[in-house]
């Protein structure tokens, strides 16, 4: 009977950990997508849609942040958990705070750039960065939906800013509260991953959407202008004149 109870407790503990990790993964995903969207702000591919995507992603991020915070705080306050469990939760806590750090900065930057580059002005002065596609799939990924639905008004670029300011204040306050309530020393946490661990699972990252993996590792293949130049391949560090790129 006792064994059975112990197993139940263990399973419950594992389930809790698993739930935490899933929620953190979700937050991590939304943070990455949000970063991606903010980078596009102020450029020629900035649009009303982008602003709406930003807003929706942001709200999703906040929901996840609140959920994560509640769960982790409760777990860390629980005195009955074992030492191993506690150090694992502390590690998750550090992951959570790092995610929030990125989100916080990105939210503030999106406010700043959003203010600097309003969309509804007679002379558009968005920066021609070379980006031309839309970010709708990125946002869909963040929201975990098949397709994004756009329903905002045409003045979202300015109307959203006030909300954004309020939300930033909320996030800042939440982070302050977190630091007060939870006693975790971040420097005491040891990472599970070693240096270069990301290379071991390269396959899963690179082979998405059926892309040719070799080609994605080449980041700078420069070709000609319409004016006609040589081909330059700067994949390696020194520029090497070559007859086109052998990748893809």
């Amino acid at each position: 009977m006792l064994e059975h109870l112990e197993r139940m407790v263990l399973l419950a503990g594992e389930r809790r950990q698993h739930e935490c990790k899933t929620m953190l993964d979700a937050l991590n995903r939304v943070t990455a997508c949000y970063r991606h969207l903010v980078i596009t702000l102020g450029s020629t591919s900035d649009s009303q849609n982008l602003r709406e995507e930003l807003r929706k992603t942001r709200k999703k991020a906040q929901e996840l942040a609140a959920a994560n915070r509640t769960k982790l705080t409760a777990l860390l306050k629980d005195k009955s958990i074992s030492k191993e469990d506690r150090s694992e939760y502390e590690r998750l806590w550090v992951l959570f705070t790092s995610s929030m750090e990125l989100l916080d900065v990105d939210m503030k930057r999106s406010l700043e750039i959003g203010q600097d580059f309003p969309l509804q002005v007679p002379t558009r002065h968005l920066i021609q960065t070379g980006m031309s596609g839309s970010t709708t799939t990125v946002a869909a990924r963040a929201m975990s939906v098949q397709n994004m639905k756009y329903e905002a008004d045409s003045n979202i670029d300015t109307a959203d800013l006030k909300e954004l300011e309020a939300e930033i204040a909320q996030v800042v306050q939440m982070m302050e509260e977190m630091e007060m309530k939870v006693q975790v020393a971040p420097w005491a946490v040891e990472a599970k991953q070693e240096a270069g661990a990301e290379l071991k699972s390269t396959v899963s990252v690179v082979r998405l959407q059926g892309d040719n993996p070799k080609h994605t590792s080449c980041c700078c293949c420069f070709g000609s202008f319409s004016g006609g130049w040589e081909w330059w391949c700067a994949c390696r560090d020194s520029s090497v004149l070559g007859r086109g790129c052998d990748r893809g």
Partner: protein
Amino acid sequence: PVLGVSPPPPALRPMEQVIVAMQDPDLGIKMKNQRLLITVIPHAMTGNDIVEWLMKKYSIMEEEALHVGDLLVRHGYIYPLKEPRNLVLRPDESPYRFQTPYFWSSQQWPASELDYAIYLTKKNIRKQGQLIDYEKENYNLLHKRINHTWDFVVMQAKEQLRASKQRRKADRIVLECQEQAYWLINRPPVECLTPRLSQRDRGKQSNTKCEHSSRMCPITHITKRTLVEHLKKALGRSRVKSSICLERYYSEQYFSHDPMMHGCPPSNPWITDDITHWALNTNTVSTPTKLRVERWSFRFMELLSDPLGRLKFMEYLEKEFSAENLCFWEACEDIRHGENSRIPQKVQEVYKQFLAPGASKWVNVDSKTMEKTLEGLRRPNRFVMDDAQMHIYFLMKKDSYPRYLKSDLYKNLLVKAIAPQETKRSVFPFMRRHRHSSPNPALVDELTAAPRGYGGCTVSLLQLYDSLPSFNCS
């Protein structure tokens, strides 16, 4: 915002305003397309375009336009497409592109270590482990420095890569170029500044490396210069000797050796009439006291000014075959404090014994000091050996003395040293022991030998007078 009225122009810094002006659909720079193999990426311009536009817009000469354009590149508002690491503006057909506002340099948003770590990890994945030297170094450094959040770095790097997979190829390429340009500005390669190289290597290697990086990244040059100036300033700062800073330590060190504060074990002879304390501390005692031996470790001068300390030190030096140093020092002291008439003779002896080439107890004095001393020997005076003595003193202080303190000889002395117990003090510390007046020395001599021992005579005067054979006042 009020309808129909456009918001005020953004409050951007001057460089940013120039960049924004370049975007004007009518008056801005005319963009071209960049054609890669099958991908076409819009919004590229040549260095020439930039210079010409600046000249026209601001009515300036080509030189100034080139300078302004160069500034824009150096600060990361425009990045080169052909040689990404060469952050200069070339007034030719070299292609450039505008950087996205998120990656503009900003004092308010300095490049963070976390972001750099994520970037390097992404690059590591994309290049399948083939990072450039300085990037590899930075990667390893960061892995140590922010190790506690490294799992997050890996997680976020993977997710950011997955997010960028959602974009079309052209946009993905642009994104990678943008990021690379940003980090080339904010974390430029700094191979030239590695202090690890030895003097010999530094001469050879740094030349080539500096050339390389100056060709590739002019910003490194600027950083190097400021670093050199900073180091020069650092050299000029005054440094205080630790012996002076630690002056407070002096009184703490000597606290337990101070008879006033701590008493002298076993007891203060002046108070208790017990001379054990002096007896234990003579110059010829075989086993010194603990306090005394400890004092020798405070300062070299303490050791030398205690004759017993000198003796024990000499024993150690004899084992090390460097006893001549101490002998020389003692001989010099003798000259300094000895009789005036004997100085020339002593000086000659010292020269013969210690300084002459092939001397039996030759001491190692540097050539400059030796020259000066030999000069002075022609007219010997009390202080002629001072320089040489000082030289040998410091030699012993820096070399033999620390080793002596660590030696077994000294450690044994400490272990065997006597630590006499404090005698029990009487309840009333001010109570004096009975004093007896000592007999008249003149009278004592005539009689039988006075009782030995300190502490007063036990014979009373009356008894004394009585014992006199014929002392009668007539």
